[in-house]
């Protein structure tokens, strides 16, 4: 087996080939690609493959170790599930872009050097934007453009960082980077943009809910988890990440409570879940890093499942606004059930996947004595149950009956959701299966009576809070609205500043040119006065006056001479 067969290239070129296929052959081919990639990556021994020396740079296109294998495998699994979910889609762009995007993400986690990482990093941006544009609305088109700009900017920063890193260290290998150098900081910001750090986050909530039903499922899996992987590889133990992650877990949930678009609610909760992983990276102990890796794995599955259920609702009813939904459990019982499994998993209910992965991070944070961070993470855990665990299923499927009666989701969507739900429960019931894949040896038992009870107390009392607030009608009702977030800075303020500056510049330019024209006109008129046909200096002078002037000049000269 060689690197030329790497699942990254297999998926990228294989998906391009699918563009010319039709019908069942295309479906079979699309399903085969991630399966083949998965088998390849599961079977190949750890090591580095396909070394290339290019312009004095040591390129390592494929590096398989426990980190990259774990992320690569879950990416390929997500690619397969998303492809099943998208099988009903008639257009070829979505599955091709989706699998190409998955391939690029796998290529990036397998990259052993910064140049390869950069190439796949940018490829994830370019391929994934089509999943947004395929929605074919003006909103989606504009959101896609903004998404692309942010993603490409992150890539450009990464390239600059790689160049500076090469100058500073003489190597382009991608291992621990740290924040001791300027290159480290640049790379940190590049990764942070993709990882949706606070204030760099809003591309996520802006773009993901505008994508197609299947597009959002693809999108939710790869870009941000690639960034988590890159941070774990380059910045583990960087203390800044503990606070950055804690803020990420906390602030998006306030927005999630008041957001109406349920896929945008999920995008905010995605941001919150990334925060847990980032805290784990910041703590940097083996337990914490195991927690990050496990949580990324579990999160990709349950988040995909939640986006799948909302995508099915969008497909069948044409909306995912909380205001317009309710009572759908009557029409879509299977989708409702799968959504609840996803909701229980993200909320970390015992026997569901989130419980066995998030416990690792919380325990690791407590083990290092970070009380405040631990309290914030606990708050965020209660909050995520509140908005993802309860709000999503409640407003979509229960609440006030909207009177909408539709068909159950298509069979391929149900199959994709069914498998994903089974995996979420499987990991929760049998955590050893996930723990065996983690980067470090796991010595942790999630199912102690105390763990289970404390988690159940946290969740049930959160549910009680929701019930009480609903019962007494204190809970903020869903409403059609846009909630300002940091994208306001470039969508409104930046736009207004640019427009204001343009207007001011145009005004200034016209005033300056008017003044210049006036001054020039004045000069021309003066010259014309003296040199024009009637001008003093252009006149033919009589010889007599000439002689007179010469005589005056000579006389004054004589006078001055004798003085």
């Amino acid at each position, binding site marked *: 087996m060689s690197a030329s067969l790497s699942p990254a290239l297999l998926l990228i070129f294989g998906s391009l080939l699918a563009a010319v296929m039709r019908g069942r052959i295309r479906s079979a081919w699309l399903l085969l690609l991630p399966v083949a990639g998965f088998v390849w990556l599961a079977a190949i021994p750890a090591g580095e493959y396909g070394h290339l020396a290019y312009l004095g740079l040591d390129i390592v296109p494929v590096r398989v170790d426990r980190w990259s294998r774990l992320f690569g495998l879950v990416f390929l699994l997500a690619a397969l599930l998303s492809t099943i979910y998208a099988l009903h889609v008639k257009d070829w762009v979505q599955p091709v872009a989706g699998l190409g995007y998955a391939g690029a993400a796998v290529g990036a986690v397998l990259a052993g050097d910064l140049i390869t990482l950069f190439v796949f990093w940018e490829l994830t941006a370019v391929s994934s934007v089509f999943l947004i544009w395929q929605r074919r609305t003006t909103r989606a088109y504009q959101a896609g453009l903004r998404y692309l700009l942010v993603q490409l900017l992150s890539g450009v920063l990464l390239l600059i960082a790689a160049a500076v890193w090469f100058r500073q260290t003489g190597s382009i290998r991608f291992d621990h980077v740290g924040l001791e150098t300027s290159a480290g900081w640049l790379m940190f910001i590049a990764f942070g943009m993709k990882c949706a750090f606070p204030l760099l986050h809003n591309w996520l909530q802006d773009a993901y809910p505008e994508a197609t039903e299947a597009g959002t499922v693809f999108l939710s899996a790869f870009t941000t988890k690639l960034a988590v992987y890159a941070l774990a590889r380059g910045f583990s133990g960087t203390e800044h990440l503990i606070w950055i992650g804690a803020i990420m877990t906390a602030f998006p949930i306030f927005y999630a409570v008041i957001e109406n678009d349920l896929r945008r609610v999920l995008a905010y909760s995605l941001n919150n879940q990334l925060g847990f992983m980032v805290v784990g990276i910041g703590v940097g102990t083996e337990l914490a890093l195991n927690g990050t890796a496990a949580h990324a794995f579990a999160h990709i599955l349950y988040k995909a499942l939640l986006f799948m259920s909302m995508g099915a609702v969008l497909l069948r009813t044409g909306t995912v606004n909380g205001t317009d939904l309710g009572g759908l459990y009557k029409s879509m019982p299977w989708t409702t059930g799968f959504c609840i499994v996803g909701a229980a998993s993200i909320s970390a209910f015992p026997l569901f996947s989130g419980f066995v992965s998030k416990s690792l991070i919380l325990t690791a944070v407590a083990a290092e004595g970070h009380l405040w961070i631990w309290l914030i993470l606990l708050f965020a855990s209660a909050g995520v149950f509140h908005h993802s665990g309860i709000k999503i299923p409640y407003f979509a499927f229960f609440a006030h009956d909207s009177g909408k*009666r539709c068909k159950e989701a298509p069979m391929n969507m149900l199959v994709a959701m069914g498998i994903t739900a089974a995996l979420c429960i499987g990991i929760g019931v049998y955590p050893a299966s996930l723990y065996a894949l983690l980067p470090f040896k796991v010595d942790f038992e999630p199912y102690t009576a105390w763990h289970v009870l404390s988690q159940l107390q946290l969740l049930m009392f959160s549910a009680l809070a929701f019930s009480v607030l609903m019962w007494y009608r204190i809970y903020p009702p869903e409403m059609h609205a846009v909630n300002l977030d940091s994208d306001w800075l470039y969508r409104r303020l930046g736009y207004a500043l640019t427009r204001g500056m343009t207007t001011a510049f145009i005004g200034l330019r016209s005033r300056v040119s008017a003044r210049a024209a006036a001054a020039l006109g004045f000069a021309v008129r003066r010259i014309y006065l003296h040199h024009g046909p009637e001008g003093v200096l252009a006149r033919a002078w009589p010889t007599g006056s000439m002689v007179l002037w010469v005589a005056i000049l000579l006389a004054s000269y004589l006078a001055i001479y004798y003085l």
Partner: protein
Amino acid sequence: MASDQSGKDYWLDRKENVARVYRGVWIACALLFLVEPLVHKHPEFAIDSSFGFYGWYGFACCVGLVLTAKVLRILVKRPDDYYER
């Protein structure tokens, strides 16, 4: 009796059943407090060794979250077509 357009009855369509669910949540919470003394604790900090910490903290967090979010909404809410104008 509430019924669907298709004529099918749904358990949750009845008001008294919703009230049952509401009471059920209260009972579940009470039970979780009651069994706490029976469980061997291994708390992370001093604060979570106190009785019912996870329960009241979760409740307080969620109420605080929702009330803060209501204030946040006053500050950040704009019409649906805000960015299209």
